[in-house]
């Protein structure tokens, strides 16, 4: 997919480029959040924007998430297109009312007369020992509650196209980027996330899953960082002669149930890989999506690999024990095959 002379970007730079280009063409776009100005964002996704657009449109905020996310709603309703950052998704607890009860619902409450065209971008994920208040995904929490679209890119191409699509969307979009894919050296970066990104603007459709690797023996469904684990597992399975199909959900809301169902109808087997907590979340929903539709296609009970229902521990040995990884996926295949 990457040709030698093609420009590769990290997700951080891809996100920044999308914001930059939209800000150039649309004066109503602006960015707010903690440390997104001079620092360029803790995760680098607003780097360079302050220099180009100045502090009016690239606004560092007080540590007041309820106020500035609520303010983004008010600005969006008044004709602006704010992109707001919640530095770590783990902090959602201090401001979720402004998100799930306000941003997500005002369109409905107003019968469609108020639009809330805003993007809430937020970092997710662990793996680098940042412990239980800085390492969560909580994908399921956001996806469960109505009124907001929810996307999670696994690579820089999608990251740019999803950001552009999210900014242009007239509905609120929650944009969840995974720290281990971000391209910040100090976090380590999954190499597969840094890919060719065209310079021109383009959009990636919100609500459409991607088959990122075709196969006929088993469907592995994941998102964000999990897609890379799934692809690595698929490479290992290939050595055993097993052809795994890998689906990158890209978007949790709307959820592309058709693509998932079509794949499992073909393979007859389903493994879901999710870094969010196991119970009452994404993994259960994907399994239910398939099984409520048609159980006759299944050759084996579906399996899920997710974070166990415990807070995220600090020590590396503890955290790594809990996180999904390619070996766990291969082991799930082995059990499935044996059953």
């Amino acid at each position: 997919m990457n040709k030698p002379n093609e420009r590769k970007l990290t997700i951080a730079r891809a996100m920044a480029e999308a914001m930059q280009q939209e800000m150039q063409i649309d004066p109503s776009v602006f960015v707010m959040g903690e440390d997104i100005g001079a620092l360029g964002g803790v995760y680098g996704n607003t780097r360079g924007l302050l220099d180009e657009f100045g502090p009016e449109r690239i606004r560092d905020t007080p540590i007041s998430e309820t106020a500035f996310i609520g303010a983004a709603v008010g600005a969006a309703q008044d004709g602006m297109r704010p992109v707001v950052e919640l530095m770590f998704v783990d902090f959602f607890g201090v401001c979720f009312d402004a998100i799930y009860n306000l941003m997500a619902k005002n369109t409905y409450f107003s019968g469609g007369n108020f639009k809330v065209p805003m993007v809430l971008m937020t970092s997710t994920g662990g793996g680098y020992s940042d412990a239980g208040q800085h390492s969560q995904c909580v994908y399921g929490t956001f996806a469960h509650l109505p009124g907001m679209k929810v996307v999670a890119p696994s690579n820089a191409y999608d990251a740019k196209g999803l950001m552009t699509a999210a900014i242009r969307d007239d509905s609120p979009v929650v944009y969840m980027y995974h720290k281990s894919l971000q391209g910040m050296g100090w976090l380590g970066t999954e190499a597969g996330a840094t890919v060719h990104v065209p310079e021109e603007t383009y959009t990636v459709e919100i609500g459409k899953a991607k088959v990122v690797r075709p196969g006929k023996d088993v469907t592995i469904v994941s998102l964000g960082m999990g897609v890379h684990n799934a692809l690595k597992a698929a490479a290992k399975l290939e050595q055993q002669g097993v052809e795994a199909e890998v689906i990158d959900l890209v978007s949790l809301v709307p959820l592309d149930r058709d693509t998932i169902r079509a794949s499992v109808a073909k393979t007859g087997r389903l493994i879901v890989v999710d870094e969010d907590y196991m119970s009452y979340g994404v993994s259960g929903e994907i399994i239910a999506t398939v099984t409520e539709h048609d159980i006759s296609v299944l050759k084996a009970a579906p399996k899920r690999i997710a974070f166990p229902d415990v807070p995220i521990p600090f020590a590396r040995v503890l955290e790594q024990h809990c996180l999904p990884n390619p070996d766990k996926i291969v082991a799930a295949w082995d059990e499935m095959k044996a059953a």
Partner: protein
Amino acid sequence: MTPTREDQHWMYHNMVTSRRFEEAIAKIYFDGKSPVFNMANGPIPGEMHLSDGQEPVAVGVCAHLNPEDIVTATHRPHHQAIAKGVDLDKMAAEIFGKKTGLSGGRGGHMHIFDADVNFACSGIIAQGMGPAVGAALSRKMQGKPGVAVAFLGEGAVNQGAWHEAMNLAAVWNLPFVCVIEDNSWGISVPKEASTAIANNADRAAAYGIKGMRIEGNDPYAIYEAAGEAIARARAGEGPTLLEVETYRLAGHFMGDAEGYRPEGEKDDLFAKDPIPKMRARMLAEGAATEAELDAIEAESAARVEAAITFARNSEDPAPEDALTAVFA
């Protein structure tokens, strides 16, 4: 700044319309809810928070606002909605849950939204603060005129969202006014049991802005203080915090037995009803004749009746409408 004769007529008119509207709602609310009171029944189901007695705050502030200005209100929004010019027919229809309502029946009494006059409200305490501050920011960034006003109850001032938004408005010097309606109760909890200080206007010091308390539920005094605050905001001089003493003549919501009120409180409050007081003052000061005021009252009553009739005669939404308007 005293209200002109015309302002006074406008204020009185809106106070009376609000009162008539709520009387009408209150009466209909009990339809289908007796002999056993059950909130789920009748033509107006759900919770109902009336603002009887608090009309002076709404009119004293909104007298200075244009449709382009922004207002966010609370679970107790009718008086402010009326003073801000929300379409009365559509508002009534919304409260009845009709297809012709402002939101096609999706929102109801606690979710009155009218984009034409930039009015919104919500059922969560202090939730309107952020959106109002954000709208003020939007106007500043766009270089467009407009002031944003958030109305809240005194109980809401202890909520974190209030503090965060006040600081944000102040640090960014936004055209924003926060108006606290101090009716001295948060449901059953009196202000002194919830709030560490007597006068919330003193909390302006925490944000380096001007704060003022207006006593007596007096539309004239409110008009004056709000006029200053809004002028300051329009002039780019930043936010103001106003706390207004007012009275809740009704229960917290309809059906509230009000057992927590000290004896005699309600009688005292009724004796201070701001509507007859304003009428008397206008007559005494020659700001209106009996005939003028009677005409205003008749007009208000007719307007309210028309709105209620519109609402009653409107169709229910189609059941499947529940599934639309989630996204833009």
